[in-house]
């Protein structure tokens, strides 16, 4: 026999697993990681990826705009507008619209599809609990939103710190801004995560969910504008749901200002920052109550 014999595996058969099973924490971390990747468009359709890329580019544009403007403001000194000398509040104000659209894209994609295809019997037959599934989804959505709020804001702060003549002096003078920046970023990400999850848990259609997430916020803003004009009462501002976390942010940065239109058409003093915070927390709590009720009913 001269030819060398080669081994060919025709049937690998079934191999029992004799290794170690890892804990629930590991399983959930992996689950959140997977969901985060899917939220960012990995292994999703090109339309979804395109939408994500456009939103991230918009955010990047806002980031560079505020970085550039604040550098120009530094150049002109104390005479420059306050919003440019302290760019963080302005950055969040402009980013809020990107966050809203991002939450309207990501949350329905992660929640509605699982409900439409009734996937959770497969998940819940694993060693996790009902609320683990929801935490994983929330963690992924929050992760994406925090990434586009806190990430650039922190980068902006670091950039400003290192571009300043004396970095340590800048840091010590703007420590309060850093605290406000972290708290505002977290609140904004939490607010839009909760809001988008609450709406998405009510429908299996991604389109309806996205429409409702955007539509209710815009409708609240419109209603707020009309009623403010008609009633001229400050409490009406609480109807503008999308504005609630932004007014808290203004309070944190010390830039809470009255609503006024040119020519003395309208001037309304703002409510206390606590009122806005209570409103934002109420929206977050209500959203989570809706999520819990929707899933509790469906998973039983």
């Amino acid at each position, binding site marked *: 026999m001269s030819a060398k014999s080669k081994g060919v595996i025709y049937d690998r058969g079934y*191999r029992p697993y004799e290794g170690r099973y890892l804990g629930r924490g590991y399983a959930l971390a*992996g689950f959140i990681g997977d969901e985060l990747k899917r939220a960012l468009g990995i292994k999703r359709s090109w339309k979804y990826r395109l939408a994500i890329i456009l939103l991230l580019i918009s955010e990047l544009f806002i980031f560079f705009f505020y970085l550039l403007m604040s550098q120009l403001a530094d150049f002109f000194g104390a005479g420059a507008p306050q919003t440019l000398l302290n760019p963080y509040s302005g950055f969040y104000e402009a980013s809020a619209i990107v966050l809203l659209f991002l939450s309207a894209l990501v949350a329905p994609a992660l929640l509605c599809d699982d409900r439409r*295809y009734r996937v959770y*019997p497969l998940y819940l*037959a694993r060693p996790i609990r009902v609320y683990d599934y929801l935490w994983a989804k929330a963690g992924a959505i929050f992760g994406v939103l925090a990434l586009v709020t806190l990430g650039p804001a922190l980068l902006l702060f670091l950039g400003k710190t290192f571009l300043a003549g004396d970095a340590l002096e800048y840091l010590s003078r703007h420590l309060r801004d850093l605290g406000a920046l972290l708290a505002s970023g977290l609140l904004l990400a939490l607010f839009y995560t909760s809001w988008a999850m609450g709406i998405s848990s009510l429908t299996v259609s991604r389109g309806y969910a996205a429409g409702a997430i955007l539509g209710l916020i815009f409708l609240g803003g419109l209603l707020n504008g009309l009623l403010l004009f008609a009633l001229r009462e400050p409490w009406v501002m609480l109807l503008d749901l999308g504005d609630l976390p932004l007014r808290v942010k203004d309070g944190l940065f010390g830039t809470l200002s009255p609503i006024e239109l040119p020519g003395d058409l309208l001037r309304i003093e703002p409510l206390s920052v606590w009122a806005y915070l209570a409103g934002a927390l109420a929206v977050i709590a209500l959203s989570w109550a809706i999520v819990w009720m929707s899933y509790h009913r469906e998973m039983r």
Partner: protein
Amino acid sequence: MASAISTENLSKRYNGLPALEGISLEIPEGSVGLLGENGAGKTTFMKLLLGLLSPTSGSARVLGFDVASQGLELRRRVGYMPEDDCLPADQSAFDLVVRLGRLSGLPKEVALQRAHDVLHLVGLGEERYRPIGGYSVGMKQRVKLAQALVHDPKLVLLDEPTSGLDPQGRGEMLDLIGDVHKKMGISMLLSSHLLRDVERVCEYVVILRAGQVVTQGKLSELLGGLSEGLLVRVVGDQEAFVQGLRAEGLKVEAVGTRLLVKADSDVVYDVILQQAVQTGVQLRYLERESRSLEELFWDLHRQP
């Protein structure tokens, strides 16, 4: 035989309506069929065993774990193949099975390897990277089976695994399911309303009707217990053979090309052999008459 599932007075009601009532069972390891018509309570029973539903009363243990308090531990060791279409259309079978394997506690590299293996095993080697939305019903059933096996469970609960399949697909799926216990050594509880599916792959059967256990036991005993005699086929002088048996006091009647010999004891075997020798016929077939599971099912169904 060790007990894989044991329940005691297990009941479940939905808004006051009973789905399961007072189920007390000891189900052994091996391949077990859970048989019943639609609405008999099979899916509810499986969900109770997984700890996905809370019982209204009673208790259950699966692989020694209490379903109410040790749900996480038992779900690590149990695989579940749901009846419903529950697969995400936009994901590939491979991604889904890896993800579910990791959720069961497999390290990432192991989950990747085992996902390849089990998908190959269920016959989805080439198609595993395609989105599930483009799969046929049979392929989807295979994905559901693969995800139930990926973490190497000790027990799999298969809820109507042949549902929606054409005859060929059904046969292939039953072959796969048959291997789960025979070749992989994994115990299984197969729920079905299709009697032939259960008959083909199960050794033990539990029959449910309207949320209650009608009967349970080894399939061979349940079917054999109803036998009325031995079926015999001979080549040669059949008339002489029959007369010889009757002369020994046995009741014999023709059933098609075979003879049905009424048997009330094992001595009948000796008498048949003795008469075959004496009359010079060739004994070509000798087996205890058994009724099909379908006959058993309908007999039980007719009982009040």
